């Protein structure tokens, strides 16, 4: 944003700011699928909550409660086991019935350790948190500690622990709040901005204080005028001139932080770098609201907004849901399945993944549930050979060469993929959409990434095994060496004592004593 905006009649800054474009991207028709006009509905606490220990990027949390224990709403039930980790809190009061494996929302459809709580309907709050009178009295470190204690993670979908991101460093130029939901179907941020803009705003102020900077830009896509109006009204009411609301064109995948930073500032985050390297920090608007609740009201992250949509659900809408609620309860709150319902997806239509069934719980990263029909999800036409048309490179928002990546991934030359920056791929799926040969490009990139990670893990393990093998060998050699030396010494002593009958006798007696002592020891052991 080059120029500051002019002042509108009501005092709000209207963005007449200069915007840039990111490379590639697609214009997707999304308005029809977004149920943003329906008001937000808070659904009741379900009888059973399933809270996975791993709801974030980084190390899995460690359970601190055991079956049979009574827990209260907001009570910590799992603690972080490392720096990049987040706490898990009980979403409502009840009794822990199990800490066991349960299917979780993950592309693998596998089960993972979860804490299962049978709720008692009382929703009794835990008394461990205090509201804050004046957040300006705390410094960045203390604010971060409050965010960390509340288990806040990025709510845009990636679920990276927010407190870790806030520790990114000093000297930032601007905080960017990302309200650019670009995927068709997803509109949980839009509804939040429409219904609770003051919460996002308070979050922005807290984050500015925590980062000790004084510039914040909230980006909203231009096809969400109501959300923008609501937010602008809230900014005007508060009169905070540090915060600016900017409309950005609706191009998929603008919600990616690198793409959004490029659009707003014209600057590019370097390939192996992070936004703070060039002075920006990006948070989702939902995360900002969660930060506000955590810091100001002392509320841990126990609920979030989820978009439930698709032709397979009777009344698509946005729901305020406790974490751990099974997907089935969400669908029921939206009028249940229609006859056409066939598939469940978590995330949007572009980047989402299928869910095995509706028993999996809502987690911190669940922004959208799509109940798709058979018509929505059709088998891809058979893949044809790549004709090197270059369409994929045209649309790639990360400026990669998808065809080249595909070529090497297909040939199994995974080592070469790093040269083509595979790990900069954001898996947006733009290349899949435009590929005239219907190649499942993103699928190849996902496969290659997980395969390379697995190889890294294997390498780390084999390095460890090598170290242990070598040190064992060294130890055994050292032991043998001492034994040999001791034997040598004894032989020498024995040779020296050959002439001396008394010394010889003393040595024999000593050896006999030693044997006797050992025998006694053994007998004593057996007696036990």
């Amino acid at each position, binding site marked *: 944003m080059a120029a500051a905006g002019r002042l509108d009649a009501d005092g709000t800054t209207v963005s007449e700011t200069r915007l840039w474009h990111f490379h590639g991207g697609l214009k997707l028709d999304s308005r029809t699928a977004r149920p943003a006009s329906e008001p937000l509905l808070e659904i009741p606490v379900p009888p059973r909550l399933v809270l996975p220990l791993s709801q974030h990027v980084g190390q899995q949390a460690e359970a601190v409660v055991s079956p049979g224990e009574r827990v209260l709403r907001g009570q910590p039930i799992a603690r972080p086991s490392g720096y990049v980790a987040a706490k898990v809190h009980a979403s409502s009061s009840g009794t822990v019935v199990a800490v066991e494996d349960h299917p979780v929302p993950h*592309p693998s459809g596998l089960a993972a350790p979860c804490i299962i709580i049978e709720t008692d309907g009382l929703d009794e709050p835990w008394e461990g948190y205090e509201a804050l009178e004046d957040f300006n009295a705390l410094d960045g470190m203390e604010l971060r500690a409050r965010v960390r204690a509340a288990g806040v993670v990025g709510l845009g979908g990636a679920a990276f622990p927010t407190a870790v991101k806030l520790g990114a460093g000093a000297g930032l130029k601007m905080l960017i709040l990302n309200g650019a939901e670009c995927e068709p179907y997803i509109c949980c941020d839009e509804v939040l901005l429409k219904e609770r803009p003051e919460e996002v705003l308070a979050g922005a102020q807290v984050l500015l204080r925590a980062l000790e900077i004084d510039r914040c830009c909230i980006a909203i896509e231009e096809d969400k005028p109501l959300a923008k109006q609501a937010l602008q009204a809230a900014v005007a009411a508060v009169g905070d001139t540090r915060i600016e609301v900017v409309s950005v064109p609706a191009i998929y995948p603008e919600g990616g932080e690198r793409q959004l930073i490029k659009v707003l500032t014209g600057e590019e985050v370097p390939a192996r770098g992070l936004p703070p390297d060039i002075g920006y920090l990006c948070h989702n608007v939902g995360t900002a609201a969660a930060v506000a609740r955590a810091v100001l009201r002392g509320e841990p992250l126990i609920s979030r907004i989820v978009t439930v949509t698709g032709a397979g659900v009777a009344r698509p809408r946005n729901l305020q849901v406790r974490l751990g609620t099974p997907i089935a309860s969400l669908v029921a709150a939206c009028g249940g399945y229609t006859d056409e319902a066939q598939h469940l997806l978590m995330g949007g*239509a572009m980047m989402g993944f299928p869910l095995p069934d509706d028993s999996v719980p809502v987690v911190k990263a669940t922004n959208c549930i799509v109940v798709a029909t058979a018509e929505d999800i059709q088998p891809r036409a058979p*893949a044809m050979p790549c004709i090197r048309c270059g369409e994929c490179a045209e649309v790639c928002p990360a400026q990669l060469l998808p065809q080249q990546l595909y070529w090497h991934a297909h040939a199994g030359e995974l080592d070469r993929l790093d040269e083509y920056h595979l790990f900069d791929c954001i898996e947006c799926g733009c290349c899949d959409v435009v590929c005239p040969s219907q190649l499942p490009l993103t699928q190849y990139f996902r496969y290659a990434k997980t*395969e390379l990670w697995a190889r890294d893990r294997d390498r780390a393990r084999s390095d460890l095994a090598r170290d242990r093998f070598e040190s*064992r060998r060294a130890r055994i050699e050292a032991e043998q060496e001492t034994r040999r030396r001791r034997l040598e010494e004894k032989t020498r002593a024995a040779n020296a004592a050959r002439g001396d009958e008394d010394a010889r006798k003393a040595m024999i007696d000593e050896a006999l004593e030693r044997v006797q002592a050992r025998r006694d020891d053994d007998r004593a052991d057996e007696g036990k």
Partner: protein
Amino acid sequence: MISAILVIAGLAALFGLALGFAAVRFRTEGDPVADRIDALLPQTQCGQCSFAGCRPYAEAIAAGEVDINRCPPGGEATIRALADLLERDPKPLDPESGELKARTVAVIDEPLCIGCTLCIQACPVDAILGAGKQMHTVIASECTGCELCVAPCPVDCIAMVEEPVTPRTWKWPRPGDSMPTEQR
């Protein structure tokens, strides 16, 4: 004629000195080829290649004494990597060494353990914890799945268990020609 002989002899002496100096000055410790081969081996230390560990096998390969297809835990990937490194043709795994298997971890049925320490002595990576007449246990994260502890156990209380796949270790499948359903 004489001068030519002298010049050649002088040059020979000069190069001889230079090479002799370089051999001392730039001497490399150990065998770099064996190191690079060792880096590619899975470090299971199982001995299925008939050598007492991965390092000895790497040294034997570097010396050209054995073939590159005798490492069952490494499987095809290791054979291919070795073939690339040594510029040879990859070949199928030698069936005499063993067969391809999923990665496993040793698990001791602890109530049955009599504390004989035989498995501890057999473990090439010190991944078993215990002492004489005390119960033993396997440190799962250090176990390479070499199975060397299974045979020495006098009470057969060690089982090899396949590692379960978790969401963290799960891998996306390689897209086949017949792709599963995908969103429009």
